[in-house]
């Protein structure tokens, strides 16, 4: 709750809205005990008194009634009706949405068609029609406003409910013996409350306005009862001669609607989980760099990463996702980067081209040299011109790089024409050729397909074609086959291997699968807790792992053909990178750990086969 308030007030406008609305609501609540005139007390002798008149702070209206008093009572009424309408619309709409979304099928179909039909009517016309049927009156206006808003809530909430109803915990609840009612009340509803609150807070302002509109037309509150709309309506005939009678309720409506909407937006932002994680600021074009100075290059190489440090600064915590990582890639070489989830593989890969999101990401040290030129801290234009042309990425989920609404062919053409000035026809030809290169059958026709029309394996091939579009020297592939089936994975790996041979591509291949590394990569680096713990020739590392972690991780991987057996496990969990132990990060799980292991940082030693361990395997 306090987190919610802090987030809410970080947004200055929302804070302003909250204060204004708070004052108005407080005054409205206090109205009965304030020393005011009676709101309906007429005094025709004192008609149209100007504001600041003796005894009437805001003047009087056409019947000589005190405007201040009417304004306060009117505000009170308008707020009450607005809140009541929002509550009714929210609850009924949510109930309909939850039912439709949860039960699906025919229930959903029938209710949602009904809702669509209601939504097809112009808003205010529908409200007028309802009041026309029920007859004028404040209660009927309230009903009308609530009814016309129900479809909005029903639609919204249905969408969210469908998402929740397909989550696995709902299935689990069914298997645990819960009936539909109980599941709806204890599993579904608690998860949609925030959405209902957001929807209410962003629409309540409009509902107050709509009620005022109906009253203005004489369909809402009936004389002499004052609400903001009817005050405006009654003042209409004296708009020119006594403008204050219109301005006073008008300004109040403006204040209320504005403050409610500002506050509503603030509430929405504060409750939105995406914005909550501190990403309220706009992301920067490239990763923020805060490094003292670039380390001297330690050698040659097409791509050299030297002592790279990338961190995430979230609040007061520092996540050392990548900690002094050094890698090098020669032309035409395939380097495997292997490690468990959270070990820093992806962050390493993204740091190369400054693609780590900032905030919260910061590169705090090291250098990334492409053909000798340091890319860390390079301006956005430089990085952009290199992305795709020199270094291209392939991600696990190709959908994240493909636009869902364009033909894949057009996207390839676009990618080609970013870096090269060729005609559309030439680019099209190249695009089809690329699709053929990644072995998409019937490439010419498939170029007209949308991403969602392709299978996972096909889509990943398009992802590879996109990466190849500008003939890069280096491909960084971040788990490109993890989401694919084994038979499709085999196809993609074979494809990458062929492309590497044919085009002399250098590949940085990120994976957590030793089998894949063993088949594809020349060299491999093993990451643990943000550091490289072992690196060397693939065959050598796999046959004789030197680091205890590598050795035990390999032992955990079941191999086909081993038959039924007990599997090796590493007890414990990988370390949290915001709280790394001093010394060796693997020490808490290592059965060879000595006191020396926990004392100081351990260096990566060795010539071609490097290891970061005081007591490596095989050495006695």
């Amino acid at each position, binding site marked *: 709750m306090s987190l919610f308030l802090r987030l809410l007030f970080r947004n200055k406008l929302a804070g302003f809205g909250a204060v204004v609305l708070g004052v108005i609501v407080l005054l409205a609540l206090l109205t009965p005990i304030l020393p005011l005139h009676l709101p309906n007390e007429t005094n025709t002798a004192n008609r149209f008194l100007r504001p600041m008149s003796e005894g009437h702070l805001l003047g009087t209206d056409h019947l000589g009634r005190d405007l201040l008093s009417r304004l306060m009572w009117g505000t009170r009424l308008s707020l009450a009706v607005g809140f009541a309408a929002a509550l009714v619309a929210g609850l009924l709409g949510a109930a309909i949405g939850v039912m439709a979304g949860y039960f699906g099928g025919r229930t959903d179909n029938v209710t949602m068609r009904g809702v669509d039909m209601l939504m097809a009517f112009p808003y205010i016309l529908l409200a007028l029609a309802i009041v026309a049927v029920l007859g004028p009156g404040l209660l009927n206006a309230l009903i009308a406003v609530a009814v016309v808003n129900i479809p909005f809530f029903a639609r919204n909430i249905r969408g969210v409910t469908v998402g929740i109803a397909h989550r696995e915990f709902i299935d689990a*609840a069914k*298997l645990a013996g819960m*009936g539909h009612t109980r599941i709806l009340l204890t599993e579904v509803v608690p998860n949609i409350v925030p959405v209902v609150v957001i929807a209410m807070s962003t629409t309540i302002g409009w509902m107050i306005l709509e009620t005022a509109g109906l009253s203005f037309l004489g369909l809402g509150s009936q004389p002499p009862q004052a609400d903001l709309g009817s005050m405006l309506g009654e003042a209409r005939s004296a708009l020119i001669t006594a403008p204050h009678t219109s301005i006073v309720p008008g300004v109040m409506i403006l204040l209320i609607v504005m403050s409610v909407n500002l506050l509503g937006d603030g509430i929405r932002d504060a409750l939105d989980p995406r914005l909550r994680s501190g990403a309220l600021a706009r992301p920067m074009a490239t990763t923020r760099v805060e490094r003292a100075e670039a380390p001297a290059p330690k050698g040659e190489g097409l791509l050299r990463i030297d002592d790279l440090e990338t961190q995430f600064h979230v609040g007061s915590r520092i996540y050392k996702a990548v900690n002094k990582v050094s890698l090098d890639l020669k032309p035409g070489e395939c380097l495997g980067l292997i490690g468990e989830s959270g070990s820093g593989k992806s962050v390493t890969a993204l740091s190369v081209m400054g693609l780590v999101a900032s905030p919260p990401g910061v590169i705090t040290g090291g250098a990334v040299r492409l053909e000798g030129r340091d890319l860390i801290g390079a301006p956005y234009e430089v990085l952009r011109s290199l992305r795709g042309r020199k270094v291209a990425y392939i991600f696990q989920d190709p959908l994240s790089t493909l636009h869902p609404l364009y033909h894949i062919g057009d996207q390839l053409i676009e990618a080609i024409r970013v870096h090269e000035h060729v005609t559309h026809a030439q680019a099209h030809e190249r695009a089809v050729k690329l699709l053929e290169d990644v072995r998409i059958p019937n490439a010419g026709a498939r170029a007209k397909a949308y991403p969602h029309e392709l*299978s996972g394996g096909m889509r990943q091939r398009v992802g590879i074609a996109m990466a190849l579009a500008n003939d890069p020297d280096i491909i960084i592939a971040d788990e490109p086959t993890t989401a694919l089936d084994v038979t499709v994975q*085999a*196809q993609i790996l074979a494809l990458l291997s062929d492309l590497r041979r044919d085009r002399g591509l250098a590949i940085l291949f990120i994976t957590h699968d030793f089998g894949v590394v*063993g088949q594809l990569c020349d060299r491999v680096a093993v990451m643990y807790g943000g550091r490289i713990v072992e690196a060397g020739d693939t065959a050598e590392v796999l046959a004789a792992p030197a680091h205890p972690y590598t050795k035990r991780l390999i032992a955990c991987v079941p191999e*086909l053909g081993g038959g039924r057996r007990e599997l090796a*496990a590493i007890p414990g*969990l990988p370390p949290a990178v915001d709280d790394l132990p001093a010394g060796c990060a693997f020490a808490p799980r290592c059965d060879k750990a000595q006191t020396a292991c926990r004392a100081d940082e351990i260096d990566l030693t060795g010539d071609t086969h490097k290891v970061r361990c005081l007591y490596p395997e095989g050495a006695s």
Partner: protein
Amino acid sequence: MTIALKATDLAKTFDIGKRLIGPPRAQVHAVHPVSFEVQTGETLGVVGESGCGKSTLARMLVGLLPPTSGSIEIEGRALDRADPAAFGRLIQYVFQDPVSSLNPRKTIRQIIEVPLRLLHGLRGKALDDRIAELFDAVNLRPEFLSRYPHEFSGGQAQRIGIARALAASPRIVILDEPVSALDVSVQAQVLNLLADLKAEFNLTYLFISHDLAVVEAVSDRIAVLYFGSIVETGPAEKVFAAPRHPYTSLLADSAPVVGRPLGGAQSGELPDPLNPPPGCAFAGRCPRASDVCRAKVPELRAVEGDQFVACHHPLDP
């Protein structure tokens, strides 16, 4: 040996493009009629690629999806009503995504309590004792009970999921890709725990996975699913070591193994479910396909001992 779970001609067809009235626009046969038996105390592994109907089959077995046709028997009793609560006491489910299977707004205690209260009517001290027992069985610390799901790692969350399934005291547990979301070093912890629990509570498992090596390591028998049908079943040590169906053989060759050259790089996609081929569904990718394959659907038949295969031209052992 008694039969714990028996499925007879179990099939599921989904309607696509439902209309308010009238028939649907199209139908997808997610699971073609399949029949199989699982002996008490056995682990039946089910492998297949995405979209081949593994999860649909599993969800029918626990009553989360009503089958289009066919029947399910558990320990000789027919369960034909799709009522998860009736199924719940006999058969339980462990989900693939450990985090999404726990309601983010409930504490672990609230989650574990539900099956104990609703299926077994436990209250008060009996309830607390049973929870402590379950937590002990899956090696979790009791102080975790008051925490919320997001505070747990994948491996821990999966243990909680397993504890919830065990809370119903089922006879059979369906494990739907229980370790796919976990790291290898943690995966083995969970697999070994499952093996221990099976021995301790005399359970029967149906273990679904796309990872052939994992399935082979934990199963007694394996069934290979392709495009909604069982194409091969047999003892775990034989199915991948000496596959008789060309698809099983392709699967076995595709699994990345250190020291083996990249293999199985054969093109071809799964058939279109809206427009299935008339004969063998694998014919489009099969090197042995002949005319009879493209015309007639092969039936599952015994080839050798208890190895069954649905193929007109099975491979030689």
